[in-house]
């Protein structure tokens, strides 16, 4: 990013190639609709381009990028009247921790096709509460650590960790036949 800020045109192409797919999927699974994801994706990269000259290293570039993406998502949800999804804290939302059954290993039903399982996982991700889904996507797509997720979403370490844990637990519950 610094090289690009200083005028090296090819540096942006490297950055873009590295982050385009992951960022796009993060957005797609957050909004659920491709058109919205396209629109936000473009807007986020325009923001990155606009911020080029003033860019300073205050965090890892990925955290910085996903912070912009998070802000854009919040704006999008606000505009569509879905902000409530992001204003509910995971812990408040969940109440008592769910008592999901452990995956039943060794069952003959595990003959399910892996592709079908993957499809169910995507559906389960979309069914997650917004903050948990975001934490999961930031960790899985963005490769962010818990601390970085906290920074990108403007929440603390503990909140980010809690959201992530709840997300994994719920997904495991939805895919009881995992493993």
């Amino acid at each position, binding site marked *: 990013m610094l090289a690009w800020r200083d*005028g090296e045109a090819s540096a*942006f192409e490297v950055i873009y190639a590295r982050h385009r797919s992951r960022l*796009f999927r993060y957005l797609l*699974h957050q909004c659920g609709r491709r058109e919205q994801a396209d629109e936000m994706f473009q807007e986020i990269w325009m923001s990155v*381009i606009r911020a080029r000259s003033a860019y300073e290293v205050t965090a890892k570039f990925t955290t910085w990028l996903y912070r912009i993406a998070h802000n854009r998502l919040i704006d999008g949800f606000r505009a569509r009247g879905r902000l409530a999804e992001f204003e509910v804290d995971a812990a408040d939302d969940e109440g008592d921790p769910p008592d999901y059954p452990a995956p039943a290993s060794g069952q003959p039903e595990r003959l399910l096709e892996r592709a079908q399982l993957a499809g169910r*996982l995507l559906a389960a991700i979309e069914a997650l509460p917004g903050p948990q889904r975001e934490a999961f996507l930031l*960790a899985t797509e963005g490769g*962010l650590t818990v601390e970085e997720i906290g920074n990108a979403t403007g929440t603390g370490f503990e909140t980010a960790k809690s959201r992530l*844990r709840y997300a994994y637990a719920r997904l495991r519950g939805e895919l009881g036949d995992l493993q």
Partner: protein
Amino acid sequence: MTGSDRPPGPEVPEVPESTISELQALYREAAQAEPDAMLDRNILDVARADLRGVDEARARRQPPWWRGWLPAASALAIALVGLSLTWRVMDQQERDLRQEMQAAEAVRAPSLEGAGSAAPTQVTADAPLLRDAAPVAELGRRAESTAIKEAPPGLPKPAAAPAPMAPAVADEALQTSGRAEKEDLRQRRDASAAAAAAASPARQAGKLEAGGLGSASSSETAADSFARPSASPAAKSVAGSVVLPPPDAATPEAWLKQIRELRAAGRSAEAAQSLARFRARYPDSTLPDDLLKLK
């Protein structure tokens, strides 16, 4: 768990690492969506155009090659003009002096009866010498005229004195004035040395005093900084009157307003810290001009 070393809270369900890995692997298999190629092209084009715009702006700002030579050429021209003027002025002065001397000679010639024809010849012979020492000759002439005025009436007029004597008189006059200047300088030097010697103990004492005062003033400054709020109730009331919203206001606009209020209340450090948090929270936001200085 990604990057977390801390133990999970008791209320958060524990998920084995293997399950997390399996979930992530499965997700990567399932999630294969990519942005459109058209979208990629648009974004890359905008990025390139942005840099091109910067390059063009830079090129527009770059002055032509000859601008670099402009200061040197100007200095050279000024030096040449100065030299030429100086030379002309000197030349003119020399010519004026020569004319004056010739006029003086012409006036003096009738009164030089009987003085022989040697003098004019000598003057002519000395002319180049005189030209080189024009100011000296001027002094000589002054001395000569003084001598004429002061000469007793009984004696033959010193005006009859031969012109070549003028440089000698001028030399004497110069030496006299040089001596006087030297004497004057020596006296001044002595006086200043004496004053310095007299002032040095006082200065040392003053330095000590100043040190004392300095430390006193620094301690006063520190004390002042603590006492200042109570010392200036007006300022206190201004600072107190600013009702600040809770830190890190919800919207960017409210946050920027809060930073401005902090700055207006003289709490620049807090304003700068708040601004840094703002920039971390909204990294792509464009800061208003009035807050750029706070960075």
